[in-house]
């Protein structure tokens, strides 16, 4: 069994003097400092049971209440803020996909924390693997979406441009849309207003004359 490579997460801290639970308590009418963790767990149990029966409002409230709690759990394992948010969302999605496994006769918090821990650990392992095997791209590796940045054969390119400019306008348009911009026949038909058949014919003729023109030039 390869569970929990790190020390086991300290047991539930629903109670707490931490800021979050106080905020929750005060937002729900309890004076700050007098948190009612047991009552909250019971609330969550009830919300979850309702959510299992399809009550969207209860489910929403439950998720909104557990999100800050999950965030505080995630903050113990991840440092990056966006990582924490990703981890929280991962847990929320997991809860959603396996919400039928919750048994309302049992307390909700241990179920939640167990899922959260499994997902956090999986995430840490995945990050560890990625860090071990991959190097992220630096600015030097970047290329640009504009074609000139990626084309080395500029002289050939000029030649081709010149040859295309010598074509009749309809053929020029066809070759530009289909070959240079790599549109599909349907897209090119919409863009140019020509029919697919005439586009095909124009492309065929354009390629034929381009081949002839370029061959002539290389002969000379």
């Amino acid at each position, binding site marked *: 069994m390869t569970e929990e490579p790190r020390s086991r997460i300290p047991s539930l801290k629903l109670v707490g003097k931490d800021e979050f639970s106080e905020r929750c308590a005060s937002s729900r009418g309890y004076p700050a400092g007098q948190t009612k963790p047991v009552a909250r767990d019971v609330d969550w149990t009830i919300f979850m049971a309702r959510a299992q029966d399809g009550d969207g409002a209860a*489910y929403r409230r439950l998720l909104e209440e557990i999100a800050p709690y999950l965030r505080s759990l995630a903050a113990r394992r991840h440092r990056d803020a966006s990582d924490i*948010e990703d981890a929280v969302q991962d847990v929320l*999605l997991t809860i959603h*996909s*396996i919400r039928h*496994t*919750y*048994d*309302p006769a049992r307390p909700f918090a241990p179920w939640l924390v167990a899922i959260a821990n*499994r997902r956090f650990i999986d995430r840490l392992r995945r990050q560890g693997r990625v860090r071990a095997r991959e190097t992220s791209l630096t600015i030097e590796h970047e290329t640009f979406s504009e074609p000139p940045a990626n084309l080395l054969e500029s002289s050939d390119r000029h030649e081709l441009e010149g040859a295309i400019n010598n074509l009749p306008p309809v053929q020029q348009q066809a070759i530009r849309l289909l070959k240079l911009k790599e549109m599909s026949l349907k897209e090119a038909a919409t863009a140019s207003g020509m029919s697919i058949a005439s586009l095909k014919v124009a492309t065929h003729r354009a390629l034929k004359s381009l081949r002839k023109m370029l061959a002539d030039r290389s002969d000379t």
Partner: protein
Amino acid sequence: MIKTPDLIASLAASATPVRRLRPPVTRAACWLVLAAAVLTLLAIDQGIRPDLGRRLQDPAFAVSMAASLLTGVLAAIAAFLVSLPDRSRLWLLLPMPALVVWLSNIGYQCLIEWIAIGPDGVSFGEATRCFATLVLTSLPLSLAMLVMLRHAAPLRPTTVTLMGSLAVAAITATALSLLHATDATVMILMWNVGTAVLFVGLAGAFGRRMFRRVAPRTFAARD
């Protein structure tokens, strides 16, 4: 990236009613009923080994068979229990005593009656039929287990698969010793331990991937 409040809103909007899982022991019992059905069908089809009554008098054989059956039952229960997020992992120890008895019993048999397989001890035909039993027992049971435990995919895939395949292996080994007269010790060892190693190994290699395939949608889409 989608914002967490938006995610919550969309999850809440798609909160369709779900059917809660039955208690794990009940679900394990369902699976065991399936296992019993498969064994019965196979017994009807292939016939129980002719010398079963006599062999059951032999304490070593009887203990070994009872232990493998018990291992199967307990491992199934443990697999269903640990597949739930809030159950203790200590449940994994549940089938261990039976497993120890089973394996040590086989080892003991090997030790006291080290018989080589005679020239016509095990014919080729018998081995093929053994293999058929192996596949016919284990395939439906593994698939049923996989589907019944698919919710464990984001939680403890490896552990649950190992436990589930131990259950399948033990049940399959029981089926083999019920249906086939493979008494040469090497064969016993091969079939019993071999089945166990085969399934646990296969599970280790493919468990995660198989789980991912049957896992609930939201999860599979992300990974």
